[in-house]
């Protein structure tokens, strides 16, 4: 954290994701950096997906939140390193599970890109007898599963 930006981090800490409103941007690891250059504050965000439609809403939220403390930031998108599901905090994973979304696996060569090799736990009944229904769920960052025990469908956050 750059010195003098503590206040900005504090203001942005409780902003929530528009598509996953029970998670904060902090839980997701979307805000990467806040810097002060000569004239402006530059907030760098890492989109979870390049075409994620929530990004423009996130940018607006950040700008309007900082405006309240008299700051008009420059918001930059960063793709390098690409956003990774490993950046989701422990607390974020827990909240996800409570909400009925199976959190992503830790990223490694087997799990990256949401490989079929790994078992996915049902967030409703905790059974591992689950199967993938579709690579794509209700948003770009999730795939669709179903539990073979409790029969409930659920979203699984992709490992990227």
């Amino acid at each position, binding site marked *: 954290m750059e010195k003098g930006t503590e206040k900005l981090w504090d203001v942005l800490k409780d902003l929530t994701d528009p598509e996953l409103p029970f998670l904060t941007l902090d839980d997701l690891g979307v805000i990467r950096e806040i810097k002060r250059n000569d004239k402006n504050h530059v907030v760098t965000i890492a989109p979870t997906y390049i075409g994620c439609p929530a990004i423009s809403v996130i940018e607006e939220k950040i700008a309007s939140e900082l405006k309240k403390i008299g700051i008009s930031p420059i918001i930059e*998108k960063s793709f390098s390193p690409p956003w990774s599901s490993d950046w989701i905090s422990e607390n974020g994973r827990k909240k996800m599970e409570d909400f009925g979304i199976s959190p992503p696996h830790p990223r490694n060569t087997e799990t990256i890109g949401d490989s079929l090799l790994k078992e996915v736990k049902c967030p409703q009944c905790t059974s591992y007898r689950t199967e993938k229904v579709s690579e794509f769920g209700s948003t770009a960052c999730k795939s669709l599963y179903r539990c073979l025990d409790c029969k409930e469908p659920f979203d699984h956050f992709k490992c990227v």
Partner: protein
Amino acid sequence: MKNNSADMVFEGLLRIADDNLILGHRTSEWCGHAPTLEEDLALPNIALDLIGHAQTLYCLACEIDSRYKNEDQLAFLRLEHEYKNLLLVEQENGDFGNTVLRLFYFSTFMKYFWERVKIKCCFKKLKEFSEKAFLETSYHSKYASQWVVTLGDGTDESNLKMSNAIANLEPFLGELFNNDDFTEMCSQNDFLPEPRSIFDSWKNEVEAILQKGNLDFPAIILKKRGGRKGEHSEAFGYLLSDLQYMQRAYPNSSW
């Protein structure tokens, strides 16, 4: 950046962005029409990714050429001959099999394309973008490959439909791997890889998947081309009138 290299970067970005925008638009046409609910979620999700790639690339292009003030102007307000996309991506969707086969061809190509840009590209912002784009196109390629195998190795009818799709798309594959003076310049300047240099990796992967689906690998001969020069097929005019309608009818409208 020197003037001539700015021109090169602009044109190079436009080619990739147009491919993604047009295939994204075609893919979005499935919204509400896919064979199952799951595919009705999957295809628009992919369309969103493709259009997102196009948007980011258009934004980079706007930073280079001040004639264009934002990405909408590039996406929605150019004339037909100013679009530089491949003929492959502008063809009508056809049936679901034809749609997923084209997506498989294109996303597998882009996967290897971005993989090379990740290793070497003189334009830093594109090199950074490629890290993310590589992951997403890999996912599209995997999704589409599963359908190619499922349908190819399914019933006689689904196999026939996939064979028809292979024949239908065959004339457009040559252009995908066609080097021209421009691609050679891009490669010499370490900006973009030459299309033909991607062929071997692409062929290995595509051939293996088609084989799993009891399907024959197509002949790759340069038959139909022109997209890179802005010479498009009939289907493209209809596509553009749909794509551009809102910005033409309500200039500068936004969400």
